[in-house]
């Protein structure tokens, strides 16, 4: 019966703001762990290589290799992990 508390979201000072978009999160993750070469080409090549990189990541993490940024992949990217890249260029 109680009206659900209308949650008010506040910005906490010093909070490591991680509200990147999923796309930003993915780009940073794929680069940090070696799935995308940092000197990333732009345009169509970028799209192709991101899809390829996502497939590689999904393979490494034992996920379904869809090549798209689906929810299981986003969730996996938010998991705590080791900082050593998975792929060494």
């Amino acid at each position: 019966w109680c009206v659900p508390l209308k949650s008010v979201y506040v910005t906490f000072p010093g909070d490591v703001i991680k509200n990147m978009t999923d796309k930003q999160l993915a780009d940073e993750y794929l680069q940090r762990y070696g799935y995308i070469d940092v000197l990333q080409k732009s345009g169509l090549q970028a799209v192709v290589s991101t899809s390829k990189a996502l497939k590689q990541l999904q393979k490494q993490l034992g996920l379904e290799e869809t090549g798209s940024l689906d929810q299981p992949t986003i969730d996996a990217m938010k998991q705590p992990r080791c900082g050593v890249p998975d792929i060494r260029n």
Partner: protein
Amino acid sequence: YQTFTGNLKWDNKDVTYRILNYSPDMEASLTDDAFARAFKVWSDVTPLTFRRLYDGTADIMISFGKADHGDPYPFDGKDGLLAHAYPPGEGIQGDAHFDDDEYWTLGSGPVIKTSYGNAEGATCHFPFLFEGQSYSTCTTEGRTDGLPWCATTADYDKDKIFGFCPSELLSTFGGNSNEAPCVFPFVFQGEKYDSCTTDGRTDGYRWCATTANYDTDKQYGFCPNRDTAVIGGNSEGEPCQFPFTFLGTQYSSCTSEGRSDGKLWCATTSNYDTDKKWGFCPDGGYSLFLVAAHEFGHALGLDHSNIKDALMYPMYKYIEDFSLHEDDIKGIQYLYGPKTGPDPTPPEPQFTTSSPILPTKSTPSEKTTTVSTTVHVDPSKDACQIKEFDAITEIQEELHFFKDGYYWKISNKRERKGPFLISEKWPALPAVINTAFEDQLTKKIYFFAEKQFWVYTGNEVFGPRKIEKLGLPSNLDRVDGAVQRKYGKVLLFNGETFWRLDVKAQLIDSGYPKFFDSYFGGVPTDSHDVFLYKGFLYFCRENFYWRMNARRQVDRVGYVKYDLLKC
């Protein structure tokens, strides 16, 4: 499993490590123990040993840091990236770094080691009863000196066993004050401080003066985090202040109100609305033991695995009763071979072609008969990557190459076979042998490893016995080479000297040792291996060989791996 390009690994088996600093999350002895157990994970399955250094440069330098911590790979705050390590090598290679914006525990909540009191250093028991009330954190209740304490059993009222929790009022760590407690207030840069501070530092660590005036005395120490300390936020390490006010409402415990990510937080003053001081509440934390065992895998030469249950899988997963996955064992033994040596391990059943038979109970020197089949191991172990073999010798007309528990052989048709496990064909042998030879009369095979030797006749073995038994000097630490001569004689080499063994008499002939260069001119006197192959003597150093013909002339110098190993 994967190794790093070039199979980076430590050449020395006794690897050293040094802990450069500590996290305020865990008492130093708990951190020491977590690292020691993490190294033991790997020494249990390899010939590696790990020795701790307390100063100077160790192979593996271990440190905690936050964000940009001095290498090109900054950490990222709480969660996300937990730690990283570098593959074996010089300098930063081999080092392991842990992100101290994480909450380091043993994986299932705070591990609070007490001091003083009457609990003799036992860890807190949460929850515990005190004066009928239940406590799930340390408390200052019942005391006037403000020191946080806890019970180390479930019921203090009944057992009366307690100890003090880590607190800057009790002791500091690191710094230059031998763990002396903070003095409050203290003066720093002319200002008065009533609590620990990160002022004056860029690494975010909380510290305090251990005298009333830092400006004059320069005495300081780092403040241990209390178990109620917040993590991250803008008050890292400060304890929660209960109750606190947030958006006009009072809270007496951690809350996720105000956040969209559901993480529990608290204020570190009584009023968040006015002071805006806050941090995340301690959760289960990350197991320093598990993360360290993973990072030390990198520091030993293992890259990430794609086996989800393997320790070297990149994602963190808390496991209560941890044991190394077979993928990790295969990976580390690919680099360093299997464990050898004294640890009593239950004898493995030897398999005949039909069914397992338990090994006959025997003392090493007795004759033991084991029937074993040679099992191929991971074919990807590449002999051509090996720079220097432990031993090379011709057995049953095939040239055998021994290295770290494995061997390869070159048939007469010049094809390379292997790797095979030494322990499968000659189970009594250690992983690393120094030399071997097949006696041409009896076809017995002699193996030498440090100060011991074994004699195999088919599957029967005599040994190990001391090389002194053959009449070699007691201070001789190893035999590096063996060359069969006519009439049942064998030359045994070590450095610049050699002896002649009468195989039948099992004794060194008189008049020996002799010096190398008066008999074998033009070859290196520090050959790590000397053997006879198809009538020629081969002297090996690194990956080269010098071939000497029957007239003792050096008629060829070449590469072991191309000319002999056929890479």
